[in-house]
């Protein structure tokens, strides 16, 4: 959908961002020590330029934890939708792997992947629709990046409103949506149509990133082999239990993954209004929650990020655990990320190669290590030494 391409000078872009920051909330990368965070800024000058990506995934702006879905008073009050009105956001500096993840989440939460727009997730869609995505193509991948394996970057064909590539002078801007076209119309005075040389420079830069990717990162998502193994259920129980030995069930991989979206929903007494249950009695569903009818007070239905790796996630009513071992739960995760069944359902691979699971895993089993193990299993190679690459 990149029908139109423009060029803006650095100053012109800064001016555009300053205007947008004044009218809406501009979120972009800021530095704190060695780390980058996406935070609201007042002015474009507050943004940092030399970064790869933030460990916090941008999805947290669309799927915050906790998020209030409803609230009600007892006795007798009717439940009303909860949550604050979403703000108009402009997200600048987001990377392609996260744009691809957001695109997947949008297809999921809109109900498109199941053909059910009637059950679109209102809270997510409300935030998504009010966000303008100005992504920036990555030209300096990190050691944990793997987007080239997953069609997750360094540049994309769709998913953004604007996709920007930094040139020696100024920026090349690709428009990817109607919202992006509205922006270019509005800021026409600051933009020029992209010239041949600028287009060639952009293409050359992107090609260069791909060609030289291995100099930055030697990690890979072995999606072909992995896809075959998980989709056909060809990995034996021993494969998964070995992984289960390394997983400490921290939930981190799900919390940082751009495509993960599982959540928990609980009705909880509002802050500070809970009471401990009687000693020796049953435990409540949430801390401080009631264990008998007749509760009073204000309650909030909130959703919280969750992970299929956790035992409590799969616990059924009455206390059975269909995926009782950690290894079986690892199988669930990697099936969701790498199987053809999910590609068929969702339209793209469940992994965009952002590399966060590599950074976040206490057990050293990021998707690169796991897909490598799957490849070894496919070709019948002897299993690697107890640990795969260190994190």
């Amino acid at each position, binding site marked *: 959908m990149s029908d139109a391409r423009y060029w803006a000078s650095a100053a012109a872009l800064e001016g555009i961002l300053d205007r947008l920051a004044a009218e809406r909330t501009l979120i972009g990368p800021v530095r*704190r020590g060695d780390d980058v965070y996406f935070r609201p800024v007042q002015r474009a000058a507050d943004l940092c330029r030399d970064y790869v990506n933030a460990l916090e995934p941008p999805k947290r702006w669309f799927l915050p934890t906790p998020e209030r879905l409803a609230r009600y008073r007892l006795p007798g009050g009717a439940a009303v939708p909860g949550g604050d009105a979403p703000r108009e956001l402009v997200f600048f500096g987001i990377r392609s792997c996260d744009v691809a993840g957001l695109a997947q989440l949008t297809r999921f939460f809109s109900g498109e992947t199941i053909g059910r727009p009637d059950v679109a997730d209102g809270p997510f869609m409300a935030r998504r629709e009010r966000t303008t995505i100005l992504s920036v193509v990555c030209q300096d991948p990190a050691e944990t990046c793997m987007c080239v394996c997953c069609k997750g970057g360094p540049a994309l064909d769709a998913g953004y409103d604007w996709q920007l590539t930094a040139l020696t002078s100024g920026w090349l801007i690709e428009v990817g949506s109607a919202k992006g076209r509205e922006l270019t119309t509005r800021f026409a005075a600051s933009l020029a149509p992209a010239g041949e040389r600028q287009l060639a420079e952009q293409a050359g830069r992107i090609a260069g990133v791909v060609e030289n990717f291995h100099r930055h990162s030697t990690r890979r998502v072995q999606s072909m082999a992995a896809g075959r193994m998980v989709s056909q259920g060809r990995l034996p129980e021993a494969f998964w239990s070995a992984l289960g030995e390394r997983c*400490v069930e921290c*939930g981190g991989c799900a919390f940082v993954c751009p495509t993960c979206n599982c959540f928990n929903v609980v009705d909880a007494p509002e802050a500070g209004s809970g009471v401990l249950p009687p000693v020796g009695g049953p435990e409540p569903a949430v801390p401080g929650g009631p264990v008998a009818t007749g509760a009073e007070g204000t309650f909030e239905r909130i959703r919280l990020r969750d992970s299929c790796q956790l035992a409590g996630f799969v616990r059924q009513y009455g206390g059975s655990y269909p995926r009782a071992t950690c290894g079986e739960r690892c199988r669930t995760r990697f099936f969701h990320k790498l199987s053809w069944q999910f590609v068929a359902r969702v339209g793209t691979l469940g992994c965009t190669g952002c590399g966060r699971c590599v950074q976040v895993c206490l057990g050293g089993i990021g998707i690169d290590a796991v897909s490598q193990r799957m490849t070894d299993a496919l070709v019948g190679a002897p299993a690697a030494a*107890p640990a*795969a690459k*260190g994190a």
Partner: protein
Amino acid sequence: MSTALAPADTAVSLTACPFCGSGCTLTLADAEAFPVLGDPVTRGALCLRGWSAGELLDSPLRVLSARMRIRGSPLAKAPLETALGHAASRLAAISAKHGPASIGILASARLTLEELHLLAGLAHAIGTPHLDALQRLGTVPGPSLGLDAIALAQSILVVGTDLSVRHPQVHRRVLQALGRGVPVRFVGANAGPLATLATEWIHCLPGHEVEAAVLAARPDDLVLWSSELALHGQGGPALRRLGGAHSWRLPDFVNQLGLQEAGIHPRAGGLAAYEMLQRAAAGQLKALLVFADDPFEFFPALAARAFQGAEFVLVTDAVATRAAEAADVVLPGSLLAEKAGTLLGADGSRRAIEVAHVARVGVSEGEVARRLAAVLGGKAGPAPRAAAFAPGPDGAAPDAPTPDYPLIAALDGATLWSTHPLVGATVTARREVWGPRTDFPDGWVTIHPAAAKALGVRHGWTVRLESDCGGLLLAVRTDPHAAPGTAMVPMHCWERAGTALGALEMDPCLRIPVFRPRAVRIGRQ
């Protein structure tokens, strides 16, 4: 378009996870916790407790107002000043009537160093020698290395601790060391996944880890251990025989080393924390001041008697606990995320934390201590440096199995968080960590699946666990990581099982309660 934000106007504040001794650094973006990638300890990872830390801010169990009870009435909300004033006047009266040594103070390993100094100042202002923390778990000044030591180690010996639960950042580095081909050997019973991943699992029964480690240790071993050894009653031997230059006693809680720094331990003429509860129960200690701790967590029966026996109990905490329910005055504390201050990392170094979230109530445990000290002590001034803790003689040795009692029962250190009040105030960590208590509400005993089979019992069945002193009913939980010959008791059953089996004892060396490993048998109900 480049300048970094100055720390003063950054929208990113760094705080510490309030749970284990790893002391990870995290940010709280609108109540959502994220690890910090650039921090050398955290390196972008948290365990589920850390990831759930943001859920504490608006937990239903936050203590957001003061409460007080007068003459047997139920606890009722009261203005902070009224409750504080009431507490001060009760303490003054008790001190005047029974002497300052009738008041005991229980501190916490999840307060900042500054707050701990204020607690020491409060003890000094009151004039009481009784200042300790149940959360000390036997920590005494000892070797503190850093994570770099693991990176440089040529061989590693892990003694008696399940790192994946107790020290996840250490667990991570040990796995990385394994990946580099460094031999990692595990000594003990509570293994967790390291039992099967380690280069060698040196089996020994609970209580015998120190001997086994000393026998197995090689000169270039980096030795890693934690409070489990002390909780088996082997704290003294551990200190003496494992405390070499290349040995690291891992702290259990985020600022447990701060307790040492602030001189919070039993001193000459002063009671240990557990002893304070015993004396209060006997009516000899008249008042208890509890800060960010819940004595009911591991010792509910004793705590109930202690709170009954004392004339006045003040609990200051950020979350509701059984202790707060039973107190005479409850004052709201703050979460670590709501405070600025200093913590001591597991390597003994100081690190600063920032206010990451506007405090819900604006009063902290340290502030309460300061204000009480000002009222009660007049111009007492800062506390003098306490003398170093002097360990006493070793306690009784662990049991050996006998033909009639062929298994050894001991505390399962990996269940340290199974009743923890902060964990219990979250949704996600609570579901996972407290979760087994939903499935086994009356407690459990963990044995190896082969042992279960040999006994003819199955996972979920109720059995009688008994020693030569007595027994109790528990559900069976099988776990392939359990060591053969053991029957591990979760820590929230410490008092009940310890009392029934005759295992709950006071260790004279470190002056902490322990569960001395006992010879037991399992019988069908």
